[in-house]
């Protein structure tokens, strides 16, 4: 990252030297030049790609199969309706996964021989659900749980599917949290204990705040991943955005609805990615200033 210092006259009467102004001017010129080169290069690449694709022999057919305005109009409202399911699942499962994952990670990092069964169980859980393919977990929960015919247990495929997502994703997220917890230097805990904090207090006020802050980027990564996987709940019959697209696509033999659904997801992921970048940058700045620890 380049640091730009403003050359303006400051209140303390600082006047930048001729040499400095020239240097700044030169730097700005280089920046402009770089931008121009990048823009030209992008335009040329874009134009050639465009000509290449539109010039290919099957282009007309591809265009009407993948980019039909008619089907895009037909698909959009239904895809958006499906997306509402994805978003609700993301919000509820996302929150549940964070809480459950953190609990698992704490359980796994508890010290002392008395906690051995807790540690063992948490380890077994993460090992199992991290290894189990999500789709199989979904099928087992969605069709297996109702097959038990238990009183008072829901058969709603969305709730069951959501539960399966939480089971799998909390195993991933627990490992991320654990990595964060273990990355906190033991001296931190030792210092906390020597100040008179109990083991639980040391965890809560010293270890976890540092651990969580360190793992925010990978956590957001898992969240983006979860966002896309919420669609897998459709295996149980619920109609999410991608599935709404598939229904139209296979009815009329046109792939445009998939493109619409894909773009909708990309549009959703981009803000999340920018948020991740922003959070990371903000934390880096703080760390660079020695603000934390």
């Amino acid at each position, binding site marked *: 990252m380049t640091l730009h210092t403003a050359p303006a006259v400051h209140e303390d009467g600082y006047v930048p030297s001729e040499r400095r102004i020239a240097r700044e001017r030169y730097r700005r010129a280089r920046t402009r030049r770089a931008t121009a*080169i*990048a823009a030209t290069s992008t335009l040329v690449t874009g134009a050639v790609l465009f000509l290449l694709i539109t010039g290919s022999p099957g282009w007309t057919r591809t265009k009407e199969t993948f980019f039909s305005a008619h089907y895009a109009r037909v698909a959009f409202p239904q895809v958006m309706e499906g997306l509402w399911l994805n978003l609700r699942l993301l919000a509820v499962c996302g929150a549940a996964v964070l809480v459950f994952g953190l609990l698992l990670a704490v359980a796994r990092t508890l010290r002392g021989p008395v906690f051995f069964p807790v540690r063992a169980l948490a380890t077994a859980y993460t090992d199992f659900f991290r290894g189990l393919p999500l789709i199989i977990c979904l099928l087992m929960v969605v069709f297996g749980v109702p097959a038990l015919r238990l009183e008072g247990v829901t058969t709603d495929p969305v709730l069951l599917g959501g539960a399966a997502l939480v089971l799998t994703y909390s195993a991933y997220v627990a490992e991320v949290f654990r990595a964060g917890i273990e990355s906190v230097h033991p001296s931190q805990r030792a210092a906390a204990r020597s100040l008179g904090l109990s083991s639980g207090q040391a965890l809560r006020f010293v270890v976890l705040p540092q651990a969580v802050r360190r793992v925010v980027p990978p956590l957001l990564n898992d969240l983006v991943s979860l966002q896309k996987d919420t669609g897998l709940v459709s295996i149980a*019959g619920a109609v999410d955005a991608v599935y709404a697209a598939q229904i139209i696509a296979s*009815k009329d*033999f*046109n792939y445009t609805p998939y493109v619409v659904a894909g773009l909708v997801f990309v549009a959703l992921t981009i803000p999340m990615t920018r948020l991740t970048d922003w959070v990371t940058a903000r934390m880096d700045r703080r760390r660079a200033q020695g603000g934390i620890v």
Partner: protein
Amino acid sequence: MHLANRPLVTALCSAVALCAALTGCAPQAEEKAPDRAAGATASCAPGKLATQVPGKVTVGTDKPAYAPWFSDDEPSNGKGFESAVAYAVAKELGYDRDAVVWQHTPFNSAFAPGAKKFDFDINQVSISEERKKAVAFSSGYYDVRQAVVALKSSKAAKATRVADLKDVKLGAQVGTTSLDFITDLVEPEVKPAVYQRNDFAKSALKTGQVDAIVVDLPTAFYITGAEVPEAEVVGQFAASSGDPERFGLVLDRESALTSCVSGAVDALREDGTLAALEKKWLSDAVDAPVLK
């Protein structure tokens, strides 16, 4: 920012190199075109069609291949209605049993644009005007009716009219006309469940996640007869207005074989072969009450 250190030439070169690399791929796509154009002049001479593999006819279908359309998930055994129809059509075209090659074609890729790997695909695909924009169909080889299957214990089992199904949780497989019947004809108040495969729909029916599922009539009888005995066929839908719904063989939109294959299907209907095969493999599917 750091681009500033690189000369203009490098940036442009990389762009040009990328384009060149991509252009290098292009001719492959173009080579296919003349081949297919040449095939367009073929006639229907028995055993001499311009098929994908000369001397053989390649038939596509999805996997698993469901009964009663196929038997034991093995299209090449000649058992099951569609397997039998495929062999009959091939024979009519002048290809005997040994010359028929089966090929796994997922439903979704059967209508993908671009060159097809099969000569025709047989997979309970209903003919529709919309679909004809993407693929070519032969004449219909089977008039299909849609039917409702429900657990004997459920309220849906008592339905006698389409209106009785309005407040029922219905399910169907994606990409089927069964789903269209639900959305267009029944117009249920509860959103229908849509399944990737009939297997999942059957599971949901068994566990009570849906009250009833809609499938084509022969499948309905197969489900109640062999797979979910605690369910029954509630009834069938009357044919929607106009043309009856028909299954057709799927061909590439530009395929030169379409008229030949259609001719073969028509001939099989004329000489009673199709009716005989229907009687043999789908004989159950006769008298389900019609839901008014």
